[in-house]
């Protein structure tokens, strides 16, 4: 778990194609394809290419301050192609991380419990169950061994990440995007999205805030290792560990259970939400279309400078 200190510039090509059996007469899509910008990641260039040309294409910001784009297609079409090209500068987000110096997990949990008139911490939104992560007590039982009384929060969360990585088999296409977390949990296998859901759901049942991160992963890490999940868009988790040395002031610590790593400069964040449903890369409602075939391709690599 070492982090190359060097910042990098990554280039991402994200292609999504729908082929429809019948003509689609009217379509509304919502795209979360534009990487975010903050102190540790900066979007240098971004281009969204949609074919056929949408009647309307409008940028927006959601309640979590993610960038999104509304696309409306009014002409009949049998194929939709959405290509996102991004160029992103990435710097390590966690330097000098000391997980064991994180506060005890119960302290964070208790601080978020409602007391009349007490101050409001927005992180509390990410303790609540959400559409893809309904409350499911088995997840809490699963998480419990990582959080004995008094355990420091970040250390417990990293332990949970390692256990999920060990217990679950990553299997491309083993689940659908709407596979309930319970099913992935029971089968002990899934794609990165499922592993992220399992981990976020488990943390929430203990009363700890956890967010879902949609992003990209370099196909070959800076350290030279093959990473899993780079051929499509990737997903991981953030746990709320305020006051942990090495975690930025916002308190959110990224953890990638699919690869058992703390994301450094190989991960690019696109959008952050409660679960997959908040930040799905491309969701849409179409009229017509019949059956469809979906092709997604993602390439993330070091920019040639």
């Amino acid at each position, binding site marked *: 778990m070492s982090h190359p200190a060097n910042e990098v510039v990554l280039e991402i090509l994200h292609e*999504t194609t*729908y082929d429809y059996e*019948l*003509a689609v*007469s*009217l379509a*509304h*899509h*919502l795209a979360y394809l534009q990487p975010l910008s903050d102190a540790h990641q900066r979007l240098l260039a971004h281009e969204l290419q949609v074919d056929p040309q949408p*009647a*309307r294409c409008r940028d927006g910001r*959601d*309640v979590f301050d993610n960038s999104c784009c*509304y696309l*409306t297609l*009014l*002409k*009949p079409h049998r194929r939709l192609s959405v290509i996102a090209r991004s160029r992103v500068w990435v710097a390590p987000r966690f330097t000098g991380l000391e997980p064991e110096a994180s506060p005890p997990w119960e302290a964070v949990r208790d601080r978020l*419990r*409602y*007391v*009349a*008139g*007490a*101050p*409001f911490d927005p992180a*509390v*939104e990410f*303790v*609540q*169950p959400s*559409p893809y992560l309904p*409350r499911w*007590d088995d997840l809490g039982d699963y998480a419990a061994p990582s959080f004995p009384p008094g355990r420091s929060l970040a250390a417990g969360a990293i332990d949970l990440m390692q256990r999920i990585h060990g217990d679950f088999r990553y299997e491309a296409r083993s689940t659908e*995007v*709407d596979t309930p977390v319970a099913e992935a949990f029971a089968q002990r296998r899934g794609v990165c999205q499922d592993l992220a859901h399992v981990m976020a759901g488990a943390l929430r049942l203990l009363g700890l805030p956890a967010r879902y991160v949609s992003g990209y992963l370099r196909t070959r890490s800076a350290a030279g290792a093959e990473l899993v999940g780079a051929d499509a868009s990737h997903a991981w988790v953030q746990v709320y560990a305020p006051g942990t040395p090495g975690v930025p002031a916002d308190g959110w610590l990224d953890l990638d259970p699919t690869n058992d790593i703390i994301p450094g400069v190989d991960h690019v964040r696109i959008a952050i939400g409660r679960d997959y*449903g*908040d930040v*799905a*890369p*491309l*969701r*849409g*409602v*179409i*009229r*017509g*279309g*019949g059956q*469809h075939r*979906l092709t*997604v391709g993602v390439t993330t690599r070091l920019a040639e400078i």
Partner: protein
Amino acid sequence: MDRHQSNLVPPGPLSDPEGSASSPQGAAPDPEGRAGNPFSGISAPPLAVWDELRAADGSLRPAWARFAELLPPLPPGHDLAAELERRRRQVEERILRDGVTHNVFGPEGAATRPWSVELLPFLIAPEDWARIEAGLTQRASLLQAILADLYGPRRLLAEGLLPPALVFRHPGYARPLHGVQPAGGRHLLIIAFDIARGPEGGWWLVAQRTQAPSGLGYVLHNRLLVMGQFPEAFRELRVQHIASSYRRLLDAMEGPARELAGGQPPRLALLTAGPYGETWYEQAYLARYLGLTLVEGGDLQVRDDRLWLKTVEGLEPVHGLLRRVDDDWCDPLELRPDSALGVPGLVQAFRAGQVVMANALGSAVLESPAILGFLPAIARRLLDQELLLPALPTWWCGEPAAWAAVKDQLDDKRARGTFPQGERTSPLLAMDAARIAVDPDAWTIQSRLRLSHTPLWEGRGFRLRPALVRVYAIADGQGGWQLLPGGMTRVARREEASVSLQRGGTSLDTWVLTEGPVDPFSLLPGKLSVDEVRQRRRPLSSRTGENLFWLGRYTERTEQQVRLARATLLLIADDGAASGPLLEALSTLGARAGLVRVGVGVGVPGPGIAPRDYERALLRGLAASGAEVGLIPGIPFNLQALERVSMALRDRLSTEHWSLMQRMRVIFSRSLMPAEEGLPVMAKVLPALDRLAVQLAAATGAQSDRMTRDLGWRLLILGRLLERLVGLTQSLEVFLAAGAQASTAGVSHLLELFDSTITFRARYQGHEDLLALADLLVLDDTNPRAFAGVLRRLRTELSKLPGAGGVTGSAAGGATANAISGAGEGGAVSLVARLPAAGVGITLEDLRDVDDVALASFLGDLARDLNQRALSLAEAIGHRYFALADGPDQVQHA
């Protein structure tokens, strides 16, 4: 009044197993034994329950005393019990006749149940109403202020006045609308409050409905029914009228909507979940009363952030929605993706301020019972006021202090789910504190209220029952609120049972008495402007157009099948008369129509080989029920289809017509009973078919004479004509192919199927030539059932369709119509051009010197050709006006 006395007293207290334990007093003696109190025999309410009828000393409360005095004089020889029972039956019959229903969902699936209204109203005295009004308008203002804060600065969260979990975990909190100001500025235009009176006589708020409150339609209908039973009392008690409240709701929407419509009269619609929703009837009723177009999500589209209704004439803008679809189901793109009820993009239109909604998306978050406990402090913060009308004491278990305070005293309380998709309300508290402790946020504890009891007439006597009153606050144009002076009172049929219509409760009209003048307003006051008049011609949504088209088709198809079934049964019964070809023709038609199940696996031999077996198969088809109905497209199938299609047309058809369409299936299947060996007896079948034929004739009569000749009617008639052409061409073709027209019996049956017997016999007097048949059944355009007659009317009606005379896909409405009609479906052929230009394409003259063999073959080809044209024309109408090809919306994720 003496005459009321003797028969009013029921023989004794009615036995009430549930109620006896809680009514230790049993029947109360007539307190004063005075004459003139028709309620004198009624039992006392259970201990510690407020009696709406009587004061503590047993005397009637003033409103009820007046009501009793105003009961109408009885005709000689009648007693009051009989009179009240007569009126109760009148109400009941009226409900059945109007088809007022309530769809109920149980373990066995959905069932439609007649709406239940009590004969007696619930009375609210002026001083009580004043308190209720002050308390609830204050609460309405507070709720609006809370939503404005939640979707805006969130001060209530920041200051710890509202627990974040109640917002962030509630599925009705619409994240995509954070920071969005609704068009018109207000989130709430209508709120329903459920209130009840406690043991001390004070009123309590029990629950509030903020997103899509139901009941306004039932309130109207209840008023209509009950008012008519007690006209004197209604007038003399000065019961407040309710019509202006409905006008106010329209005004509240129309104000901001008019701005969106550029100052023109706006188009408002009622968004429904469809005919299978719980309160479909009342939604259709309300839409008709308010003059709103009734639409389902699939009827609407969002383009350029604006909302459009797909009508048979193209896209029409919609500026406001009174919605009866829950928040999270309204837009599958940004809210619940599994919703098939919503409109993709509606959130965008709402965000852009291009649609007024009653109520705004995201209002449901206030429906959590847990909110009630936090309102007093919030009222102090936002309004600097104390709440005037208390809510039931409520503890949200997610607040550790509240849970600790209440967890050892659960016995006299009830637990409710904090969130709608959480666990069900446990009806009576046998609560397990440990279960709550697992996920305390999801639970809310509420004190139980012993509801006040109000009198009901229950057939043999009066009974007191616990009542819950739903009242409605409606926004006015000045930013304030007014209560609709009335409401819907619901009572449990049993003591202690929960007051829920889903659980078999019943409803009361609610009379708010006033000491001042009664507002005489009716919903259609003053003069309408030309624009308003135009506006009231509601556009025809494509869905409604399609349903009307199919109403015409199914009605005609059923008529044809009844005729065919009748003819076939008679022929089989009359053993000697049947010639081979005729039997063959009828059985071919029967098989095509799905009257009998022939073919794979069933193997019914033709009627010529085994007439009894064939007859049994036919009877089995007629008596099909349940799942069998879907297997063969015979009469029961068509009657079911008529029932379904007309259900969706509740707001378009006259009550008599609608009610007939709804009942025909049941009447037909009942009239086939009793059955032997599962089959109806022949003696029942023919009369049943005859009765059905009469009903169908009445239905077509209603369609022909009593409907406005608008576009909807035209589509219905086109459906009927096309179906007629399909059926008649098929009949002739099959008869000719079998040679069945060669016998007298064959000619008779053919004429029967064309309903042309009398004219033929009068015109040709004994001749049965094929040429004569060709003249009357094919060429004569004055015969409404000849091909030429049907074609003539088809051409007339088709030419009146918007854009039908022109080129498909580019007519009516230019670009928008073009966009919705799909890419060139139907090619560049106009609809009329799909038919022969005149007549059937030939004249009698063309048949000179043609022998019978050639004539039969020629007519057969003509029939086949017209049959194909009719089918393809029906399909083209579908593509052009209903866009059947698109199907439902699909959600996809990548």
